[in-house]
């Protein structure tokens, strides 16, 4: 009887390591503390070895309102072209001097930020819609983009956001989530998802804000995939019509 039991248990332990090896394919937080997903994650991916040197302006690799479909409104005050002068003084950096030093060190070329609100805004969000912010940053070379991506990831993590598993986008990517505040006058928590990725010398950050219960990382990742398709030339990269001359330093 003990021999039979031993044989049965052996069969059991043989399969456990095999399943454990497969089980991590989602990029578990414990296995990937930075939130960077391992290649081979579930879901479609644009991930490839292609690391192009993209030319400016960065805005043409952003996501256009037409890429999102219908029922979206451009957040005009949150739409602006970035350069070292107006990006360095923002809250992304501890000081304007530090911002200028890092951006120069990374070979910052140009940037673009825009946002989209769902028609119906908070009411729509409480029924499953979400807000979007997209940042695109272009650097002189891949090394600068890599350094910037590492810095941006550290900034996101410093806000208390937690790594979340998501399929890889671009050459490297990471995803995070955070719960903060509520939606409108309701008591429903607001949930944020960040997907940050690098493709060659381009770093893109996608942020979504939606209602707890509805939101997953998937919408942010799908929007990031659109931006990556533009970087890869798989989708027309069209420079958007300027919509604002807003200076971020004034509001940030």
């Amino acid at each position, binding site marked *: 009887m003990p021999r*039979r*039991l031993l*044989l*049965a*248990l*052996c*069969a*059991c332990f043989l*399969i*456990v390591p095999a*399943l*454990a090896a*497969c*089980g*991590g*394919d*989602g*990029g*578990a*937080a*414990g*296995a990937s503390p930075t*939130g960077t997903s391992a290649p081979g994650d579930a879901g479609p991916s644009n991930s490839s070895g292609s690391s192009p040197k993209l030319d400016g302006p960065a805005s043409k690799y952003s996501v256009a309102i037409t890429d999102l479909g219908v029922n979206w409104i451009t957040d005009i005050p949150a739409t602006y072209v970035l350069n070292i002068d107006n990006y360095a003084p923002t809250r992304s950096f501890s000081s304007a001097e530090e911002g200028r030093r890092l951006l120069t060190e990374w070979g910052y070329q140009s940037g673009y930020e825009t946002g989209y609100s769902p028609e119906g805004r908070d*009411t729509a*969000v*409480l*029924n*499953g819609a979400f807000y979007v912010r997209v940042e695109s940053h272009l650097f002189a070379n891949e090394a600068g983009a890599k350094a910037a991506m590492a810095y941006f990831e550290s900034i996101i993590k410093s806000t208390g956001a*937690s*790594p*979340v*598993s*998501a399929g890889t986008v671009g050459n490297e990517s990471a*995803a995070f*989530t955070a*719960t903060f505040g509520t*939606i409108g*006058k*309701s*008591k*429903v*928590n607001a*949930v944020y998802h960040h997907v940050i990725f690098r493709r060659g010398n381009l770093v893109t950050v996608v942020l979504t804000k*939606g*209602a*707890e*219960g*509805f*939101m*997953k*990382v*998937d919408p942010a990742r799908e929007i990031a995939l659109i931006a990556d398709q533009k970087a890869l030339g798989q989708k027309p990269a069209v420079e958007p019509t300027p919509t604002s001359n807003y200076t971020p330093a004034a509001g940030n």
Partner: protein
Amino acid sequence: MRRNQPLLILAAGLVLIAMAVVVIFLVAGNNGGGPDVSKTVDGNKGPASTGGTLGGPEPVVDLPASKYIPLISEVPGHNEVNVSDTFTMNISTFTSSYWFINDREGQDKAREWKIVDGYQVLYQPVGLSAQVLQGGYYSTIETYLFADVQGAKAAFAHLSDKIGSLPGTEKEKPRGLANESAAYRLVQGTVGTSDVVAVYHRFLFRRGNAVVSVQTYGGDPFMTIDQARELAVMIDDKLLGQRPATEPTPIPTPAIIGVDTN
């Protein structure tokens, strides 16, 4: 027996493997590790509704129908009034309602049953569908008054047949209420863009010359007929005079041009 020993060992091994697979999947969850869903719907159905008066008097209650509706402060949860779906009924809104296949039938029945007043209110969670995913629910409450008990009886029979024959509708069997009652459940779609199954529950009852419908809409993991029945008990207590029946402030409040209340 000894000849079968290897087979028995293999079978035991396979059973243990199957058990290990189940345990691993339960422990590993969605194999992503990270929280890709912002909050898990765990489901938390409340206690069964067993209160209220079964049988009892058959009063001919006073107008208006609106005063028997629960006030927003009496409805559980963090709710608001859906203004566009809250109104006093007139003959036109009644005859063209979901009760009838067409306006002609509505007119005939309204005359036959001698309807005298009606009121509908829709209470919705302030957090809308997102709150529904956390256990909140929508409540549509309708109260109809008829000139006599006979008309209300005929109207109740018509409405319960109508609701009970809707495709996909299942009959529920909670404790009865008032002079007669019926309860139904309809599972339909999901809550918003989520994967959570949505469910309607409807509790109908008649007390004297009043016919009442209470319908709730919520997430299946949270909802039973009991939420609707609890609201129905509240209304029945008002009809019986066991609970204050207060006419609600008209919504929307009429604005008189040229009159400044300040």
